Every structure is written in C-alpha cells, then in structure tokens.
C-alpha cells in the first residue's frame, strides 16, 4: 500500500432502517496510520458507519474501500480489519487463558505471546473467569483480542464509554502503545471529545446521518478561530457560533488561509470547542435546507 493511498475511503454510503435514515451520502477519506475520532450525537450514524466498514451491515447506497481494495467475497477484504463493538463480546464463562486460546484458534494471525505478556503486565490473573472481571478489564481483554490479530485497521465503537477514568487512561495507553508499534489505522467513536483531542489526528463529525466536518485535526483547528470584539461589527469568515455579552461578542469563525480580522482579538480553538460548535449548529438548525447549505460551505476536504 503506498503512502498516499487511503486506509479507508467511502463514497456516498447510505443506510436506511425501515423509515429512518441511519446514514446518508457519507463520503470521507482517511489516510493510513492515522487515529480518526468519529464524533456525533447518539443516533447520528456512528455505529452504523463502523458496522458497515466492519462488514456487519450492508449499505443500501454507495461504496467503500478498505486498505486499498473493495472488500467482498473471495477477497482478503476484512482479514486485516478488527472491530470492537460497544458490548465487548466475550465468552463470560471462559477463563482469561481460555479466551486467549480461543482468539488464537479463531485468528490465524493472532500473536498469542504478545497477548499473554500484555495481560500479565497489566496484572491479569489468567485463571480468572471473564464474567468476574471488572468492566475495565473486560474492555482491556476485548481490545487485546483485537490488537493481537495485528490488524491494519482497527474500528472501535465507544470503547471507553463504560469505564472509570483510570480504566480509560489505561486502555488509551495500551491502544496508543500498540498502534505506535504497528502503524495501525484507527477509527474510534466516542462522546469524550476532550479525550479524543489528546490523541486523534483526524476527525469525522456526523450529525443526523450526515458527515458535517472531516479532515486533518491540525488543519481543521488552523482554519477555525475564536474572535472577541465589538458586538456591532461584523466578523470575517464563516460564522459558526456567536455569543454576545453587553458590547462584546465572542464568535467562532472558519476561514481558509490566513484570517485577517482587524478590530478582533483572534484566539486558536481546541478540538472540543470546535466540535461542540458544530454539534450545536446542526442541532439548532430547524430548517433542514439551511443546515445543508451550511454543510456545503463548512465541509473541509482533506
């Protein structure tokens, strides 16, 4: 796979469940070796997108490529893709050691030695029954199952949602250390945007089944600024959110290239602030067509 070939490329993916749209016109391209944060409110289509990429849900529109090829019957397709869903699917009656043996038996590429070492390093008792492990340990074990397969692409659906802060941190450490060694491409969905902001370098933001913002995190942050200035003057760039207090306005704007804002005090934004502004923008947009117009102008292509 060459460097400029996308690890994941989707073209107009769509999925309907009965009468509701789960995903529509979903198009983005993720370069290899990136850690991509997938954010959006509940029901925005994050899980549907991940399940489509994992081969568990068939889209009714569009197409996609993983690691440079279209997956399907007779192709290697999903062999190098690992997916962890929200419910941490594990055999609860198995011991930790039996779980490892099952993972090795089910996956030709499973690195048993690495998995065993990592579990021991994390303080696991290999004889303990999976069902009696803490939630954090179960997630760790499920992640080790995924990572032990040495995937080129790892899809994680809210892996830290049920965990306390310590278990979260420990899971993120494990993930990043392994990803750093293997150059794995990762897509991770989460509501913990500030946590994602620590380690994601790519973003896909979904609301109401559509991609509203996608691209390299540094580039996205560089094209957004928080401006503080006089309420009556009009700010430069595309205004995403605006709050006025007395004579002072605080405005989040987006602009390509250098932002020239005389009379305004410009500050950089962080990922969380930017994401929340977009979520609010599309949550507030009662008029669907107005929101769609904003999408066209606000989408940043990588």
């Amino acid at each position: 796979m060459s460097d400029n070939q996308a690890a994941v490329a989707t073209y107009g993916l769509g999925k309907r469940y009965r009468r509701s749209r789960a995903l529509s016109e979903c198009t983005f391209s993720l370069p290899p070796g990136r850690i991509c944060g997938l954010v959006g409110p509940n029901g925005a289509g994050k899980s549907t997108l991940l399940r489509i990429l994992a081969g568990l849900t068939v889209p009714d529109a569009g197409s996609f490529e993983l690691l440079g090829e279209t997956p399907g019957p007779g192709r290697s397709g999903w062999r190098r893709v690992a997916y962890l869903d929200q419910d941490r699917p594990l055999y609860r009656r198995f011991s930790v050691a039996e779980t490892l043996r099952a993972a090795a038996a089910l996956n030709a590429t499973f690195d048993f030695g690495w998995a065993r070492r990592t579990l021991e390093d994390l303080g696991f008792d290999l004889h303990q029954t999976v069902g009696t492990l803490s939630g954090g340990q179960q997630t760790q074990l499920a992640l080790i199952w995924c990572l032990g397969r040495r995937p080129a692409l790892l899809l994680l659906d809210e892996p830290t949602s049920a965990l306390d802060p310590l278990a979260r941190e420990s899971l993120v450490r494990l993930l990043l250390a392994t990803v750093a060694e293997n150059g794995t491409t990762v897509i991770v969905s989460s509501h913990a945007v500030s946590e994602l902001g620590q380690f994601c370098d790519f973003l896909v933001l979904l609301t109401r089944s559509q991609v509203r913002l996608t691209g390299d995190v540094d580039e996205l942050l560089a094209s957004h600024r928080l401006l503080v200035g006089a309420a009556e003057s009009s700010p430069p760039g595309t205004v995403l959110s605006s709050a006025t207090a007395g004579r002072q306005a605080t405005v989040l704007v987006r602009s390509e290239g250098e932002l020239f804002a005389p009379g305004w005090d410009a500050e950089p934004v962080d990922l969380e602030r930017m994401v929340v502004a977009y979520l609010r923008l599309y949550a507030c947009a009662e008029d669907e067509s107005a929101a769609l117009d904003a999408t066209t102008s606000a989408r940043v292509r990588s």
Partner: protein
Amino acid sequence: MNTPLNGPAAREPAIRFHITRGSGLPAYRQLVDQVRQALSLGLLAAGDRLPSVREVVAEVTINPNTVHRAYQVLEADGVVEARAGLGTFVTSVAPPSATPEHQMELQEDLRSWAERARRSGMSAEAISALIAVTFPNPAHQRQSSE
C-alpha cells in the same frame, strides 16, 4: 509510569515528557521545546537516548504521529539522530551556557528580585510584563528562525 508497557529498556530514556493541554501550543512543539530546554540546562548530553515513540505515547497519551513529527524537527535541526533499531539519540550538544551551580545562583538572584518587585507593590502581571519587555521572547525567536 510503572506499568511494564515500557518493557525492559536496555537504558532508561534520558528525558520524560509532559504535555500541557489547552495551552494553545501544539503538542509536538511542546516536545521539541522540552528537549531544547533540557539541552540548554545541561540535563541532556550527547549519546543520551530519547524515549521511543511507543514509550512517549504510553506515558503522555498523545498521537504517535505527533512524537514522530517532534523527533523529525529535532533531527532536521541536527539535535538528535535516529539509529536504526536502537532509537533516537542526542548527537552533539553545545555545552550549557552556565554550570548548574551558577544557574542556581542566577535563579536565586531572580527570586530575590521578584520579592523586591512584589514588596514595591507590583502585581504578578506587571512583573511578567516587565520581564517580557526586558527579554525578547525566545520561543518567538525560535519559531521565526525555522
């Protein structure tokens, strides 16, 4: 971090990084600055090993690409070199401008100066402002010279 994720390193890395979130300074920049600062304070010497990318991300939970980028900047500046299979090492270093003892002395002077400024009724902001106009900002100089 004491978890064995770090593995039994042949030699302990010579520096530990920390990241301040929300400082506005990109994470890779913070890593670069910390290495340069350690060099100028004489805390890093030629031949010292920087932590591996894996060690850094496991410790400060940042993106591996961020660490790669910081190390590339340092390598381009000739401060460090990557040795295949071994890691990233400090190359040659200009000797620190002052011995650690002398630096402590200077810091003591600065502390008593700050105390005098406080006693004369200056606020912390006013003191910082005075320092800012007295010394050109080294971070800015560095950025413009890149």
